[in-house]
């Protein structure tokens, strides 16, 4: 379970995330069992009916990146290949995003923890992550994984 500092920081920053997602026909929900876990509902602007559900699980916000997984529904299963969009770096068969954006990516590439790929801890990293996911959906999306 995340500490109180993390929960307070997330509460401060989630307001901007809600505003951003509502402008992109998306939605943010907090997990009922773990307040450091959020569920995004997002969609690519090129194919609005294609809805994706993303679980962001924070451990120490804003100090560490979140685990990012796609699920088959809010609160649903995290190991469904078809829950993932086809986007470079989004690995549907490994259920991870191999970019300096997610805990999984930084785990695979420890060298990203320093230099220009280092996790950003200033400003609103929560919004930054969500913007990056939406950007990828809007600009690099080629379909749903099968």
């Amino acid at each position, binding site marked *: 379970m995340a500490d109180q500092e993390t929960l307070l920081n997330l509460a401060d920053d989630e307001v*901007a995330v809600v505003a951003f997602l509502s402008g*992109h026909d998306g939605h943010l929900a907090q997990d009922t069992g773990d307040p450091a876990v959020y569920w995004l509902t997002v969609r690519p*602007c090129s194919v609005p009916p294609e809805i994706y559900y993303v679980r962001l699980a924070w451990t120490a916000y804003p100090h560490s990146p979140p685990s990012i997984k796609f699920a088959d529904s809010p609160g649903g299963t995290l190991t469904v290949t078809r829950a993932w969009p086809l986007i*470079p*770096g989004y690995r549907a068969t490994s259920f991870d*995003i*191999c*970019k*300096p*954006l997610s805990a999984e*990516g930084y785990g695979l590439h420890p060298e990203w923890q320093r230099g*220009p*790929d280092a996790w*950003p801890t*200033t*400003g*609103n*990293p929560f*919004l*930054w992550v969500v*913007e*990056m996911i*939406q*950007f990828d959906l*809007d*600009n690099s999306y080629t379909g749903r994984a099968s």
Partner: protein
Amino acid sequence: MTVHAAPGPVQEMQLISVQVSFPVSPKGPYRADVTPATLVGTVRQAAMTHFEVSDGAQFTYVLTHDGRRQPNDETVGQVAGDKHSVDFRLVKEITQG
């Protein structure tokens, strides 16, 4: 007697207010008033200077408007259409993975 100058061929230049947001910067948004002919790439560079970031080997910063990547060679006037302001977002586009 009051003399009014005849309307001439000079048309007043209408500036466009641009704002660029970047959520992980401790600084506030980059703001400027620019001519419609200003290139998106010019705004991008000015915003990157404001936010103190630069492109890397495996990532580049791009401006988005309404979610879409805006080409550097597009003009702010083209992006704005008939509006007098444009909100951009600076996004780090990561090409590695």
